């Protein structure tokens, strides 16, 4: 199947339910984290070019850009994690009668963890 069709189907949120929207977020954050891993491998491989090259790249992510990038990454991690736990529970056949409630709890937990994480990142970079 062609990539556009796959992306359209996974990330079609218009007219879709809360459950499908959460599925899309789970997939999207998974893709984001996979890309980050790739970026991270490139980042640490600059070590072979010497300390200066590594520090220069790290320096790019200091300040505002660092706050935004780290916050986005943390949000992706948290969403993937909390929605993943929800998914693991229902995919094993548990809590099916209360899956909506479980999903709402997963989102609520994600929002709290994201807020705390962004605050900690902001304090660390300040």
């Amino acid at each position, binding site marked *: 199947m062609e990539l556009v069709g796959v992306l359209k189907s996974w990330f079609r949120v218009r007219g879709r339910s809360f459950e499908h929207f959460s599925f899309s977020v789970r997939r999207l954050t998974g893709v984001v984290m996979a890309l980050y891993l790739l970026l991270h491998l490139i980042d640490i491989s600059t070590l072979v070019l010497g300390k200066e090259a590594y520090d220069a790249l790290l320096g790019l992510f200091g300040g505002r850009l660092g706050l935004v990038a780290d916050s986005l990454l943390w949000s992706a991690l948290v969403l993937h994690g909390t929605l993943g736990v929800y998914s693991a529970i229902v995919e094993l056949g548990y809590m*099916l009668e209360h899956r909506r409630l479980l999903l709402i709890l997963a989102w609520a937990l994600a929002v709290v963890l994201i807020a705390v994480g962004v605050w900690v990142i902001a304090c660390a970079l300040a």
Partner: protein
Amino acid sequence: MKYRLVVRRVKATGGRRFDVFEVEAEPDESVLDVVERVSLQGDRTLTFEHACHHGVCGACGMVINGVERLACITRIGEVARGGVVVVEPLRGFRVVSDLAVDKSRMFGKYRLVTPTTLEKLDSRLDRVEFEKLYDCTECGICYSACPIANTFKDYLGPSLLAIVSRSAEGRVPAVIDSRAGVWACHAAFECSVRCPVDFKPGESIMRLRRRLLKGEVEVEG
């Protein structure tokens, strides 16, 4: 009231296009009624499926303003946006013509369904016996709504797995316990949300998984 019916046309002879029909209809009329009127008075080549007209046969499933529904039980006034209704064929199936799709992807696997889910109908045509599923209307809406069924063509699909789950008396064919079977599902649950008869295929698949994990169901072959 005036509505603008936009139909996604797919013909074997030429690519895809959207045709626009201006129609006069009451908000309480069904989308199927309006499509039928267009086919009778506007364009006789418009192809679509229907039979019972009251949400039982499952033939009239289509995507209406982006959402899978049975056209015969969908009031046009409830789904129109700014007087516009866009109708498209179900997703996840090969389009035969316009709004008619080939559901053999779903029906072709019914040999996996054990007879406990089937009811034999009284009517006979020569010596052919009719069989109908008890609950599922075999509309295919769940396939169209499922992001996995749309992107993984070998996936057995929500309705079929749900039917197997409800009929399995301790044994299922090996394909059910495979990548194309229950393990392909990733809990989007759009199938359960869209199913017009509340058959809840998503939940049934997960229950079958649990029974497989617990060893309560034997895998054949």
